[in-house]
């Protein structure tokens, strides 16, 4: 690694169906202009595996590898991933590296970005009701385990502060016994 390389900040951007635009936009507006960008897409084997499994479950008919829908899904998933990375690179408009990884998204993402200076991740999760479940499994894992700072961005405009629910009407009753003095 040369000196000039170590000066550059390495920014990883998680590219995922449905939310990648927000991640790319956040990276463009918040990351240093001279950063080295890496677009990271993770393809999970689960979906083709579900199709492989369903085909294997067709008892007595599963002898034609060419008909296995899982194989076709694998091919389509690869095409879709490279299309997505291409679109993300076009939106970014900077020199960047495209990284396509196979595995469970949350783990693969943390592993791939181990040496990054910043990881940009869009929230996934059920955001119709903000609370514990509005941070999905993948982003929750990444927030907990990433080896670098994580920039967590909203896929849509961030909610207004006014949307925070009011505090509970009935505050918890005071403890019956005074708390120990040495706290």
């Amino acid at each position, binding site marked *: 690694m040369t000196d000039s390389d170590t000066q550059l900040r390495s920014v990883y951007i998680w590219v*995922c*169906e*449905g*939310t990648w635009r927000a991640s790319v936009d956040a990276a463009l507006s918040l990351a240093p202009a001279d950063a080295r960008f890496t677009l990271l897409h993770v393809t999970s084997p689960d979906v083709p595996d579900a*199709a492989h*499994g369903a085909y*294997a479950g*067709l008892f007595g008919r599963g002898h034609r590898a060419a008909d296995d829908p899982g194989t076709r899904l694998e091919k389509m998933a690869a095409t879709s991933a490279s299309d997505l990375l291409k679109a993300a690179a076009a939106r970014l408009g900077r020199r960047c590296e495209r990284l396509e990884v196979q595995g469970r998204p949350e783990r693969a993402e943390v592993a791939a970005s181990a040496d990054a200076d910043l990881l940009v991740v869009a929230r996934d*999760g059920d955001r119709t009701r903000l609370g514990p479940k509005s941070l999905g*499994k993948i982003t929750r894992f990444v927030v907990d385990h990433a080896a670098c700072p994580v920039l967590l961005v909203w896929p849509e405009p961030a909610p207004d502060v006014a949307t925070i629910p009011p505090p509970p009407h009935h505050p918890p009753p005071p403890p019956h016994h005074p708390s120990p003095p040495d706290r």
Partner: protein
Amino acid sequence: MLAWAVIRPRGWPEAVAAAPAAVILIAAGAIPAGAAGSEARQLGPVIGFLAAILVLAHLCDDDGLFRACGAWMARSSAGPSRRAVPRRLLVQVFVIASVTTAVLSLDATVVLLTPVVFATAARLEVRARPHVYACTHLANSASLLLPVSNLTNLLAFAASGLAFGHFAALMAVPWLAAIGVEYVVFGRFFASDLNTSDLNTGDLNVRPRRDRDRADQDGADDDENTRLPVFTVIVVGLTLAGFAGASAAGVNPAWVAFAGAVVLAVRALIRRRVAPASLVRAADLPFLLFVLSLGIVVKAVTDNGLGRALAPLLPGGTSLPALLATAALAAALANVCNNLPAVLVLLPLAAPSGAGAVLAVLLGVNIGPNLTYTGSLATLLWRRILRHHGSSPDLGEFTRLGLLTVPAGLVIGVLALWAGLHALGG
């Protein structure tokens, strides 16, 4: 022989082991030649029916029916509100997969529809997981409606003595109930995937796809390819109506399926859209031979002890508890070996209790396989052993989804069947 069907050495067809096994059992006297003959005579029309349906589905695919479905799903899911796209697509997938499974059998959903659904999700830039899982689940649980939906149904249909229309009428509500359970569970289970979509993009339309290879063409959306094949749809519709009519008139509906397949095949051959060889291939002769052999082998095994061992477990009658127990036993047996042997074993035991018991067996063997993603523990275990790529699939997720849908689907489906039996008569 079951082990062979699960392991499939060298990718050989299952019939390579099943046919000699049947011959050996007949030669060894485990099953008298006469009994084997009558079993074959009973299975023959069922197998012919199945072959006709397989060819029909193949011809529908060749004529672009599933591509048209994909284009329709993409068009009607894309809308002004991006956030609603994944959920709208899930509704379309449920409708298309349920109808495809019911009319053209579960094989069509698994082999022909699933890739189209994936391609559509990719084009809409929606996470494909809920939609693909829906296809694999509905291929089982939405295969309750018609005798043609599943080979297990065809076998039971022959054994139950019901007319085609009566079968469909009794199974309609359980079918809808099973699909409803799946939809409710999927909506909650995949809430995270279904609510993930960009709202900050005005520039997003259906992403055009380039046609690179066959896989890509599944979702190709040029208008030339994706017009609804009206002729094919009409033929399939007439075939369906013919099933009910023929059955009511005492004619085996297999002939109607055969006629429908012939009409589409002749048209496709004249237009040179298909080669004769691909039609023969679609009929899947090794599979038909496998079913015939499996029937004979299972008959031999049942007659030589398995039937006596299972008989006390199967409650008689068609009271609600009896139906529930029958469906549960069928689901358990389907999960241990597979639903085809399970239904062959249970049918002769359930048939004396009446059509209601036979249909309860079907609920068990059709919904039950969703507990494991390969339809049975035997297949699942073998796939675990074979697995050569490093990462193993997230079995926990499949199993949780199965545990949420299967027991609920079974109970609600049996309740609906029980109510239907009282309303319509078994």
